[in-house]
């Protein structure tokens, strides 16, 4: 039995934690928020220097050629630091799609540039305020021209390219679009978490290349979502753990009625509930990491379980962290709101908790023996 990361992976995680701390931690998140930036340029530059965008890119395309587990440990630290960088869009979603579904030519052109940062990618799905389905998909491709609009696309301003989920003649397709090409219009959309940026991307006969096969685009999309769900879940676990740590620290420092508020059972039990949620989420994520890294057929079940569990944990820890901080927790000055807002955005990025619960139960129905 070895449901644990290797010493090398733990070392990498430790290095990642030190790196984000050293580079300023939450001050970067605040800077992006306060100055209405799309991301932290300096931090992103250093992440590129470390080669992390190429963790999963094979060495023949100038990447590090490592596995998904390395990505999981980095994701947890990004989540803990609320790092304001386009890592999830470009790495978990865009890069993974190119690795899995790009033609040899596309891989040759795109992957090495993802390592250097010349190319930054994103992934465009949503079209309106509801969960997208195969039949509601309206953004369409004719020949290689994409027309239609996507909303809530993360990091689209910085991104040079996007994977776009579109309706083709034989069903949904994944299409690679150069965002600097003709017929692409990008506009910023306001959102709840100002440390992350989301955009409307309108396509008007924009040129594109097919990723994967025509007609199996929906399955490809679902697979990419499942993979990313595990990685997003690790970010959520990192964020939950940090919110719990903050609440714990404050409960030790803050006095009321002549004693530390952490000595009241009302606070202790709240924090114990947070610990339970984080522990369940973390264990589910380890299962997700195993399924992801071993390319198990259990991935749909494992991904949805990690995702739902981590979404619940982060939302619980983020809101109860504010509650533990009392009035201070509601001020801009204290960091609690950064976690509250990120927990909400992360819970929606790949589809809401409800949509992942639906995937989870569908996977349960298909599995004959659970546990």
């Amino acid at each position: 039995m070895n449901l644990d990361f290797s010493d090398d992976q733990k070392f990498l995680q430790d290095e990642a934690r030190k790196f984000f701390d050293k580079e300023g931690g939450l001050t970067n998140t605040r800077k992006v928020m306060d100055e209405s930036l799309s991301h932290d340029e300096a931090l992103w530059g250093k992440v590129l220097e470390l080669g992390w965008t190429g963790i999963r890119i094979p060495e023949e395309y100038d990447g590090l050629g490592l596995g998904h587990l390395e990505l999981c440990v980095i994701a947890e630290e990004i989540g803990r630091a609320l790092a304001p960088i386009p890592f999830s869009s470009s790495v978990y979603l865009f890069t993974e799609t190119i690795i899995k579904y790009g033609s040899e030519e596309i891989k040759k052109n795109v992957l090495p540039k993802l390592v250097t940062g010349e190319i930054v990618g994103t992934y465009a799905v949503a079209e309106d305020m509801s969960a997208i389905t195969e039949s509601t998909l309206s953004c369409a491709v004719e020949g290689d021209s994409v027309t239609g609009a996507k909303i809530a696309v993360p990091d689209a301003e910085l991104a040079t390219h996007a994977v776009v989920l579109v309706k083709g003649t034989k069903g949904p397709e994944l299409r690679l679009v150069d965002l600097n090409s003709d017929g692409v219009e990008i506009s910023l959309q306001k959102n709840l978490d100002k440390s992350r940026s989301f955009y409307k991307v309108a396509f008007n006969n924009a040129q594109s290349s097919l990723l994967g096969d025509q007609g199996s685009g929906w399955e490809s999309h679902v697979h990419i979502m499942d993979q990313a769900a595990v990685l997003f879940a690790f970010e959520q676990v990192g964020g939950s753990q940090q919110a719990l740590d903050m609440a714990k620290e404050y409960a030790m420092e803050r006095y009321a009625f002549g004693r530390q508020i952490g000595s009241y059972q009302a606070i202790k039990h709240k924090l114990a509930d947070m610990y339970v949620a984080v522990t369940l989420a973390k264990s589910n994520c380890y299962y997700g990491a195993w399924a992801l890294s071993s390319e198990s057929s259990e991935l749909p079940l494992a991904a949805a379980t990690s995702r739902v569990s981590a979404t619940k944990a982060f939302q619980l820890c983020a809101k109860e962290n504010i509650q533990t901080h009392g009035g201070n927790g509601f001020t801009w000055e204290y960091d609690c709101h950064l976690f509250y807002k990120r927990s909400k955005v992360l819970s929606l990025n790949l589809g809401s908790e409800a949509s992942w619960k639906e995937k989870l139960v569908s996977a349960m129905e298909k599995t004959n023996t659970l546990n």
Partner: protein
Amino acid sequence: MDFNDTPDQAKFRAKCKEWLDSNAKLKDAGKRLNVESNLEELIAKAKVWQKKKYDAGWAMLHWPKEYGGINATPIERIIWGQEESKYDVPGSIFEIGLGMCGPVMMQYASEEQKERYLPPMAEGKEIWCQLFSEPSAGSDVAGLRSKAVKDGDEWVINGQKVWTSGAHYSDYGILVVRHDPDLEKHKGLTFFFVDMKSPGITVKPIKQITGTAGSGAGFNEVYFDDVRIPDSQRLGEIGDGWKVAITTLMNERLAVGDAKGADVNEALSLAKDKDDFGQLMIKNQAVRDKLADWFCEANGLKYTKFRTMSALSKGEAPGPEASITKIVSANKLQAIGNFGIDSGDMAGMLIDEEDGMSSFQAAWLGAPGLRIAGGTDEILKNIIAERVLGLPQDPRADKGLPFKDIPSGK
């Protein structure tokens, strides 16, 4: 990351399997097993199986070699448990003895006593129980009031213990009592072992909310009425009772793990089979939402256990993650039981004339006990908050006071 045994563990597992194969039958899937309504029959079968294991060296793996164990590592104990549970063998009535009483005896009893008591305990000839909780001392077990008064070379015990598993068939018990109410709460306690057949001991089964005294290892009240215990049966110094008790309590809190009974699989099967509101329950969004939550909890506990095992497997001390198990599983059991009952709508409360209670009804009725036994939800949350997260203890109204001056209600 994988779920495989190391080569050593695989070898050990193969050894377990080999012995079990030639001494027991695999469980028959689908058949209900070990439902012995007759207590004597249950005990007799359990004793035969324990003796068989003892003779072959499988009875008390974790005990040191000098007491007949093999000093098994925690992961080896888990492997044995995993393998044994696949076979149709009697449930153990020796766990309290082997897990709690034995180790205490090893540490505190005299050489002659160890020679006299440990082998029959291991062999299953003599059954042991643990006498700690009292009517006025549950979560605050150190607040116990049963009295021990020294009389020559003997102690005279008066008082009442409660929630004692298996007291009605036990031969011996470990006992903590108050020898001096003028001392502070934790300082006035002393620890003994006692012959359960001693004059003055009365055992009364507790009728639980299930209407029965529980299955097999049911709970009891144990009354002590001028029971005399020789001073030679004192374990530890006079006044060291709490120190001796605390190690066995910690073992208990870890041992009371996953709540058995109706689980998410059963809830899923029910939802797939049964109509409600004119359609299969599984099509109902509210039902799906609950199934997702329970699966996340069940799966989270499963892989939490795997993480603990992974640490043990590497010879590392496991993290505190296992502390969540009972809180999560007992509450989940209660919720799933409730769900199953409610699926019967107006008639959900009815008990089948032939089959008796459904597993959902049994889960719902038994779950309140599981949320209390071996540490209530609230005590376990305190433990997580204080020992895992490092939060301060609550201020205590009993600190520094002689026991007799501590405020007490009913």
